[in-house]
């Protein structure tokens, strides 16, 4: 898997770490900096989280701040909401993305609405972290990629890191954000790549995409674990690859500037295509940049089918070959 390291100049000492370690460093920094920050979820304490993202934090911060909760996603998110309107800044871990479905009412009916409902008197400074996506050979409902559902709900930011560097900086920015952030972590990348990250605290701004490869023939938009496949598939094209990083609200300027330059766009995501985020991005480009387009905006996505278990993983997930075929179609249009 290609290593995506940040091009940003970094002067402090750097460690070569996995995304799991980078997220652990970010949590540690946030807990150390602000006693109103708490971490709560199933198995986050003693066990250090099922992916070990919170490893060691219980010993360092104690059970008042690293809260092992009962098995109750609705109760966890509901309680975190109560904490946040009271003034704390809970970071909640939902063990797998599909496990949040029980608690979706908390997200949609309270967490995203309280600022509006109270006209700003009560706000929800909360981060919901959850792993998503295929590639871990999980049981059913351990590999869903339903980020688009959450992008649809006003009031919620949705962020997906793609590297250890941006995972650490984005999580810091998410905690600092006064509104709720759904922080969706690509499980396949947790240990799949190592990169250098600074030891010291830093933030990667929300709502800003990063151009990880410049080009003038084709714009490729992807995020999370698909970014790496999308990048690999660009071989042979002068493709500009945009790592979206924040899905809601996404960085409109970076997209439009690139489209102006290339006139050809492919959006790659693991989630099913229908009403996926690619549809929104495609509509946005159509509305704002139609005269720059030389070809239809195409999407390469998971099929209109439920996310499978291990044996069908590689067929469901867009492969480098399938992505490359989509590029070819757009280039030859």
């Amino acid at each position, binding site marked *: 898997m290609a290593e995506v390291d940040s091009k940003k100049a970094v002067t402090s000492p750097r460690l070569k770490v996995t995304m799991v370690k980078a997220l652990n460093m970010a949590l540690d920094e946030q807990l150390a900096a602000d006693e109103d920050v708490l971490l709560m979820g199933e198995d986050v304490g003693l066990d250090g989280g099922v992916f070990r993202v919170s490893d060691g934090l219980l010993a360092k911060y104690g059970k008042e701040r690293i809260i092992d909760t009962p098995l109750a996603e609705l109760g966890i998110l509901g*309680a975190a909401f109560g904490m946040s309107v009271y003034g704390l800044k809970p970071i909640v871990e939902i063990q797998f993305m599909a496990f949040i479905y029980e608690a979706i009412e908390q997200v949609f*009916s309270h967490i995203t609405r309280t600022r*509006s409902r109270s006209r700003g008197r009560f706000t929800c400074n909360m981060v919901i972290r959850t792993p998503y996506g295929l590639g871990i050979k999980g049981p059913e409902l351990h590999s869903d990629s339903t980020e688009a559902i959450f992008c649809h709900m006003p009031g919620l930011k949705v962020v997906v890191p793609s590297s250890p560097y941006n995972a650490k900086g984005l999580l810091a920015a998410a905690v600092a954000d006064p509104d709720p952030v759904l922080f969706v972590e690509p499980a396949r990348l947790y240990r799949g790549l190592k990169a250098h990250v600074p030891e010291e605290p830093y933030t990667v701004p929300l709502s800003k995409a990063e151009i990880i490869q410049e080009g003038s023939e084709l714009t490729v938009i992807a995020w999370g674990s698909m970014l790496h496949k999308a990048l690999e598939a660009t071989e042979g094209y002068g493709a500009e690859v945009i790592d979206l990083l924040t899905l809601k609200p996404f960085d409109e300027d970076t997209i439009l500037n690139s489209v102006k330059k290339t006139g050809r766009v492919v959006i790659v995501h693991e989630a099913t295509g229908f009403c996926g985020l690619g549809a929104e991005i495609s509509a946005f480009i159509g509305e704002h940049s139609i005269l720059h387009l030389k070809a239809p905006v195409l999407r390469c996505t998971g099929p209109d089918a439920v996310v499978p278990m291990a044996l069908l993983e590689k067929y469901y997930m867009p492969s480098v070959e399938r992505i490359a075929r989509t590029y070819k179609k757009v280039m030859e249009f």
Partner: protein
Amino acid sequence: MPYKTIKTINVRHLQILDESGHAADPAEASAFSDDQLKAFFKALLQLRIYNDLALSLQREGRIGTYPSYYGQEAAQAGSALAMEKADWLFPTFRETGVYLLMGLPATNLFRYWLGDERGMKIPEGINVMPMSVPVGSHIPHATGAAMAMKYKKRKEAAVAYFGDGASSRGDFHEALNMAGVYKAPAVFICMNNQWAISLPRSAQCAGDTIAQRAFSYGFEGLQVDGNDMLAVYKATKDALDKAKSGGGPTLIECITYRLGNHTTADDAKRYRSEAELAKWMGREPLKRFRAYMKDRGIWNEDYEKEVSAGIRADIDKAIKEAEATAPPELKEIILNTNAEQTARQVRELEENGWLK
């Protein structure tokens, strides 16, 4: 006998005034001073008058759908007056009376019932949450706030209100379970008004009491005569004191009755009998309290008229204020969706001329 009993629970019940309003427990009743009783009576009257006026405004088409709390005034006022200013309230849409007594201006409430969300812009310093419409979904919020109070080592409690219907939802159980696990300073008040729209209490759950469910989560649940304001006050005060001194949560089941319709959009005649209504009319809380005031020699008609007139004037003023407020503008909800506007929101505001 192969099976042994390993656990029994005792559900306590509290009543201080009997159904006709005389002291059922004279020692407990006489612990309340005349001044306290007068303040309680005023609160009951305030709630009754507000509700009557809201219902007439709805009939005149001056406010939208309104959920009456007629019959539940003692349960609302008794619990609300037991709370302190620093405590946090997590109510449902029927707790208008609790809001009033916690200090939310009546104007805000009328604005809300007019369909103006700004009514739920709670003034700073009043710790009451906006109305939670999805039944039961706010109960875990009280657990979380209570956990935060404990973490911050503050002597405060979080109080959630909900109905008998909500006690069937998962939210109720997850919230109570977590409150028990963390010994959170929370008080859960179930307004068992016997009906969840058309479903009677008996069809809601096969258990004898809602109170007994608390024992599964490691803390006490008790039943209170919800139309007896003194009993509700005492039970709530005791539960709050217990919570603030580290004793953990309590579930209080107030046995009361919704004398009105579910909301103004409902017709309770479709599902419940006149005989049942008449029976509960006889236990109506204001009448009971008035009878006890008479027993104590601190009530007469002129006194009630005078108190009522003052309340009525205040509420009339609030209605006038609410009706004179300029309507909200669409930009307000866009500007209050996030702290900072997205590029799309800015465009929507500009392109549609909504910023003006």
